[in-house]
């Protein structure tokens, strides 16, 4: 066996904790990578995976100390003289950051940023670097490779920026490329395209790779070896197939189990004639509204859905589908331009100020990011107490007792009431976020991507809690997510939104097997599977006959991306709503038999 390309021995990274004692966030990590291989670092947040990846560039975030030996090719880091490795940064060792939208400088043109590493390390002249960048843009399947670099970061989508960032990492023809969760912030459908582009260019360049991720299924497509990390320690290192099929370590088994969400047991909802919440023909958007009730920038077009008492209805779609806008309209944060929202048959005021306190109490919203939703200066008790006082007029002992009850309900110790939110972990914060909504004793909770920012293991626990609360309290959910597996695990009914239009709705079971709407099909097939050959298979399926057709409000919105669109039909009139045998309603020109065949 040839000498490994990357050698890491006894790597440790130490920070000073708040009480001044040294804290090892990475402890005694050793591994090798062969030239041209891709090693995945996998683990939950706090596992030290990003810290290790950054240490490979001789870089530690402020206040952290690296020790141990790292060799990348001929460059080394021996714990004291780290300059050698640091000099390779952006030249022979390059980095693709998690959120390209944040990692690009907002005020500079992209091409300047992409070729900057080549210029500062003197690997190419400006003209050569520009030409090379255009080649890379083309190889990464970016549109208009010649001119896309002249744009600013805010003008492009997340998936495009992520590919530009890969081009920036490859511009110096590096020997080691570090990918730090490069697709975590992307929609599943975009993720597939970006992963394919990455895999292609990394193979063409023959570079060695380090792929940091919390998602085993993604890693299965990209890596040759997997290093499983937990709390800064190595749990297991093995070839991908071995880790997926015959994991040795218990922690790896937990991760694998959490990667496949299980359907949470729920009470069958009694079919009630009168739904708890009904949304009828909602249109909503931003900007001035015309006479037909259409906003200048419409987000939702004629969306209808019903939620029974104690039911869980999922809304899925990619970013820009308007799924969060549905929640905003129901909560009264955005007034619809047409249509009505009614609770128990009573029409609700269009905006919060038109609703009674009782109506407000009955519908609560839980936001995605508990860090932003909860005031970091307040204690957990204050946060819950405020709600109790506002809706129920509770104070003093009565409120304290209720806070303890609520904490028990969300499986947190009562002592946490005195702690500030900033002292809690991500999962605990999300529980408090949920308790804040529960404190109002609502009939309906609007959950807006509540599990999206969480690790798989924590996400599982939160989903379990949501299912339990529904069983015990009979609360209904409008559960919004971009992840179909999460929605399927929790919800009885699922609505698929595409560009503000409801393209499919039906019971959970209807989504287990085709026929689906072609967009639902795309969503489901884009979820990475825990096997190494998935990405190559899914690659063959895509392609759209009307890709150059601009999107139109008078045709099926999905037309430009639809792989099964039919000329003379789909490009002429609006699609009808078809009922499938499984009970799901699909907005499509294709018949049930055709849709079933399309999936094959």
């Amino acid at each position, binding site marked *: 066996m040839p000498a490994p390309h990357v050698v890491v021995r006894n790597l440790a990274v130490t920070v000073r904790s708040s009480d001044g004692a040294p804290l090892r966030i990475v402890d005694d990590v050793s591994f090798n990578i062969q030239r041209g291989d891709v090693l995945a670092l996998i683990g939950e947040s706090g596992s030290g995976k990003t810290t290790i990846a950054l240490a490979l560039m001789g870089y530690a975030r402020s206040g952290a100390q690296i020790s141990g030996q790292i060799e990348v090719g001929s460059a080394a880091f021996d714990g004291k003289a780290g300059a050698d490795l640091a000099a390779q940064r*952006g030249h022979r060792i390059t980095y693709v950051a998690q959120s390209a939208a944040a990692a690009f400088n907002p005020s500079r043109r992209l091409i300047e940023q992409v070729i900057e590493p080549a210029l500062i390390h003197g690997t190419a002249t400006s003209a050569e670097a520009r030409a090379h960048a255009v080649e890379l843009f083309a190889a990464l399947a970016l549109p208009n490779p010649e001119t896309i670099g002249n744009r600013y970061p*805010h003008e492009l989508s997340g998936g495009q920026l992520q590919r530009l960032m890969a081009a920036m990492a490859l511009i110096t023809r590096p020997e080691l490329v570090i990918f730090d969760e490069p697709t975590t912030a992307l929609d599943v459908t975009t993720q597939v395209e970006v992963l394919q582009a990455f895999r292609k260019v990394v193979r063409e360049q023959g570079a060695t790779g380090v792929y940091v991720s919390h998602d085993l299924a993604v890693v299965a497509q990209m890596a040759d070896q997997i290093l499983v990390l937990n709390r800064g320690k190595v749990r297991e290192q093995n070839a991908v197939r071995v880790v997926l099929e015959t994991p040795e370590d218990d922690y790896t088994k937990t991760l694998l189990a959490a990667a496949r969400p299980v359907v949470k047991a729920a009470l069958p909802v009694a079919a009630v004639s009168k739904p708890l919440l009904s949304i009828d023909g909602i249109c909503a958007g931003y900007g001035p509204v015309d006479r037909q009730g259409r906003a200048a920038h419409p987000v939702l077009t004629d969306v209808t859905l019903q939620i029974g008492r104690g039911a869980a209805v999922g809304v899925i779609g990619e970013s820009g589908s308007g799924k969060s806008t549905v929640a905003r309209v129901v909560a009264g944060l955005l007034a619809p331009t047409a249509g009505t929202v009614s609770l128990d048959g009573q029409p609700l005021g269009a905006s919060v100020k038109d609703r009674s306190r009782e109506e407000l109490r009955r519908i609560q919203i839980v936001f995605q990011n508990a860090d932003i939703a909860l005031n970091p200066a307040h204690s957990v008790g204050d946060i819950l107490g405020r709600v109790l006082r506002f809706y129920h007029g509770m104070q003093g002992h009565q409120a304290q007792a209720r806070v303890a009850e609520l904490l028990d309900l969300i499986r947190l110790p009562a002592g946490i009431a005195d702690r500030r939110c900033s002292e809690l972990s991500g999962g605990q914060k999300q529980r408090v976020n949920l308790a804040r909504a529960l404190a109002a004793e609502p009939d309906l909770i609007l959950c807006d991507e509540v599990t999206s920012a969480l690790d798989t293991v924590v996400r599982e626990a939160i989903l379990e809690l949501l299912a339990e609360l529904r069983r015990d309290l009979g609360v209904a959910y409008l559960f919004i997510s971009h992840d179909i597996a999460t929605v399927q695990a929790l919800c009885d009914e699922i609505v698929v939104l595409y560009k503000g239009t409801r393209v499919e709705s039906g019971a959970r079971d209807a989504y287990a097997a085709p026929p689906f709407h072609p967009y639902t099909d795309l969503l489901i097939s884009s979820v990475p599977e825990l096997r190494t050959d998935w990405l190559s298979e899914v690659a063959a399926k895509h392609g759209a006959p009307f890709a150059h057709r601009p999107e139109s409000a008078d045709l099926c919105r999905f037309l430009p991306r639809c792989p099964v669109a039919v000329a003379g039909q789909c490009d002429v009139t609006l699609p009808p709503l078809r009922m499938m045998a499984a009970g799901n309603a699909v907005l499509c020109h294709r018949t049930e038999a055709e849709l079933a065949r399309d999936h094959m």
Partner: protein
Amino acid sequence: MSGAASASAWRGPAKLVLKRTGLALVTLVLVSAVIFTISGLLPGDAAQELLGQGATPEQIAALRQEMGLDRPAVVRYFEWLRGIALGDPGQSLVANKPVAEIISERLPNTLTLAGLTTLFSVPIAFLIGIASAVSRGKGTDRALNIATLAMVALPEFLVATIAVLVFSVKLLWLPSITIVPQDPTLWEFLRAYAMPVMVLGVGVIAQLGRMIRAAIIAELDRPYVEMARLKGVSQRRLIFRHVLPNAVGPIVNAMALSLSYLFGGAIIVETIFSYPGLASLMVNAVTSRDMPLLQACAMLFCATYLLLVLIADTVAILANPRLRQG
């Protein structure tokens, strides 16, 4: 890119700037009403002030009528506003000269002092701000923080007095009053202005330096800075090519605030160094109840402030591609 495309690219910011200009004008009109009302609330008026304590009410009334002070306030306001708009803020009641003439005698002095102070303090503030931000939490940063805090805290009259004591009285290097001779040599000119510029600069450097530090630190925490470091960008390039373009907005706004202070707030320095600027003119107008002069000065200060803020806004809009594209 074609000419048409680049022309349309400028339409967005042009519209934004026009909107801001319109808003500034509206603000100025509102401010004029406030100035007029408040100056009317001051006890006594110019007639009373001119005739002194011994005057009979009849004499005062007669003079009031002569000066037009007996007409309704609304009439006087609109007449005055029209005058301001046409560039004629009226006649000084005390000096019996056109207000425009009095102001134009003083304006060059104030502009010179403000301009020199800006040239002197802005580069130093940038040096302090940048040095402090890049060494955040370390010795240099702490020392600079203490220094700038002390500079902010020291009252101007104290700084001025100490400066006079040291440079004029003890060392005999600089004159204690600022009199610029006719046709000065560069050396005479600089010597004359050295002390007022230094004293005014202390506050400006400290304030602006701290603002620049804060603006840069806010940017240094953003992910693109870490990305730039991981690309191997040097510290100097990081600050000048990556961070400063993004920090332009808050920095130019801080500069606008500091400079507007230099224009109208130099009263202590003007008094101590017997320098004939606009601030002391305005204070004199208050004591002598010379309303037209007072109002004109106040309007001038407000207009300058709004102009500086407008320039700062425009620069911030042009520096931000997102706003630039409207």
